């Protein structure tokens, strides 16, 4: 099963490599990982997407908590959180597909952020399904490159992470 973990860490040197090293050293896998400062500059927030059965997830959560620089770990269950990621997609454009492409971008509420004679860079924000869907749709036109940020996630409702 796929899990999204929200991890609050002290903003100190080496923390990222401690977390990454824990995953590699214990044979856990990381599908994506994002890090950035929070409102409190002493604290960073990581969103880690990982995979494993309940027992593995229990170990991952406990092992993360055991790191001295980790302040809090939350395993988001499906439904109780919002997650988003940004993808930049470079697509070939020709005269015969330009308008179709623009209308797809419009439907997906994406943006064209770079234009050249042969290609557009599309910026798209959404959950995984949405990004997968647009990639599928534009694939026949010829994708030159895709770069994704990895997920960020947040608890729904009044509670904070």
């Amino acid at each position, binding site marked *: 099963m796929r899990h999204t973990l929200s991890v609050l*860490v*002290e903003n*100190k*040197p*080496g923390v990222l*490599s*401690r977390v990454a*090293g824990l995953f590699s*050293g214990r044979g856990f896998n990381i599908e994506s990982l994002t890090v950035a400062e929070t409102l409190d500059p002493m604290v960073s927030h990581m969103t880690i997407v990982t995979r494993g059965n309940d*027992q593995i997830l*229990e*170990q991952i959560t*406990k*092992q993360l*908590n*055991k*790191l*001295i*620089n*980790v*302040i809090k770990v939350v395993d988001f269950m499906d439904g109780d959180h919002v997650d988003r990621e940004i993808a930049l997609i470079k697509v070939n454009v020709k005269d015969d597909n330009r308008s179709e492409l623009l209308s797809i971008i419009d439907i997906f509420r994406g943006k064209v952020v770079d234009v050249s004679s042969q290609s557009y860079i599309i910026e798209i924000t959404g959950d995984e399904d949405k990004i997968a869907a647009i990639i599928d749709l534009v694939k026949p036109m010829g994708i030159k490159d895709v770069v994704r940020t990895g997920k960020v996630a947040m608890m729904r409702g009044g509670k904070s992470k």
Partner: protein
Amino acid sequence: MALRLKGAQILLETLVREGTEVIFGYPGGAVIDIYHELPNYDLKHVLVRHEQGAVHAADGYARASGKVGVCLVTSGPGATNTVTGIATAYMDSIPLVIFTGQVPSMLIGNDAFQEADIVGITRPCTKHNFLLNDLEELAQSVKEAFYIAGTGRPGPVLIDLPKDLMNGSCEYRYPRVVQLRGYNPTIKGHQGQIKRAAAEILKAERPVLYGGGGVISSNASNELVSLARMMTIPVTTTLMGLGSFPESDELSLGMLGMHGTYRANMAVTNCDLLIAVGARFDDRVTGKIDEFAPLAKIVHIDIDPTSISKNVQVDIPIVGDVKITLQQMIEIIEEEKGKKDWSEERREWIQQIEEWKQTYPLAYVQKKDVIKPQFVVERISELTKGEAIIATEVGQNQMWTAQYFKFIKPRTFLTSGGLGTMGYGLPAAIGAQIAFPDRVVIDVAGDGSIQMNIQELATAVQYNLPIKIAVLNNGFLGMVRQWQELFYQKRYSCTMFESAPDFVKLAEAYGAVGLRATKPEEVVPVIETALATPRPVIMDFVVEPEEGVYPMVPAGAPINKMLLV
């Protein structure tokens, strides 16, 4: 007004205030400023002969005394030489603080002379580590290091100290408190869980207590003994737990696992309740995991939540300090146990265990001509009345010591359990003797392992440490040879030494005393002479070359399927 001090002074001043008495170390360019200040402080420094020795010695000091062990080494090779020692302490949860010198801040990352990224290298084998960036943080960092090393599940903490910071200066204030947002170990066990566990103990017909190193590190031997006696529960311990329960007690089953006693492994396999206390279900203990304690409900008490349900699914997990949790448990049981005669309740179970003990006791045959290694260990045990502090190397020597030495007190057995580090015993014995100058300290060694840190004999001689080394000299890397004998068609590939030092002359060359026994009747006189000699002694016991350690559970087999020879 606050005092202005140099970095080196701040470090040493803070060590003194943290209660450090001894530093095990080795100088070099990156720590020369610290060494320059050292004579001004009330700190004993033990100059080892190899940095690995410094860490093992600090580790032996910590295991024997319960205090945090402290090391100081230089950058680059000095730092990398500590890695095996640090990993050894990490696997066995031993509290250490290691200070490594580092090249000046400006040069970090430049492949400077004697630069090594020791923080990167030791990240997976320390409880915590960091590079000092700012001199203002030094005092606070040192205090935190001691706090982290010694609390919760103990472990080694490393601080990397750039040379320029040791030479720089700033205002010094000794920090009063430690506050770490991400570190707050659970000490008290969950009362509801403890109640459930207590109820199981009152219900069980065939309970077994399984004690590990956690009983020793939390100083909970008395509580373990009380619980066992109060409810008549037999106790087995892991290698790391030896000494936590007196083997002179009738409830003692001895060690369990790969080289455990027949009765301990049979008791665990047949028990209906297994109470694991500060133990972590290591593969050397459980054998085939799905057949480990198959009939039992399992209670697991441990300070480290990651230990719980890592290898074995447990029925009642309790996170907490072993000592405090056992006290809580004893209190509850005290109230609820009623007027039953528990030794009567358990009579059948105890009888069954006694039968197993009679059927296959630990045994060997001492013939007339050749010394059996087990015989040596038994004589050492008798002649020191279980009072000595015993270190071991790794291999057969370690297992025979675990089996045949009758441990009666905690903190008397120093052995590398988790990492299995050959070369651990001699420096660990040095550390223990520094902590307890008046006690008998003996390293039981193999002729292979002892050569891995033999240089530390010079340290023992320099500081007049009367440690004793008992080499069980079988001419083989015995434990590996035993595996080759049993599982690799006796192909003794690279396990026989074709050249070996004369250990008696070697001892003398170092300025220690050398003794040798080649016949069984010489064993006791050699041990007696050694014990009466107030200097370091090597006893070279020339033993049966191809003796094996039994019982043995082949790796991956269930623990009730023992080879008994």
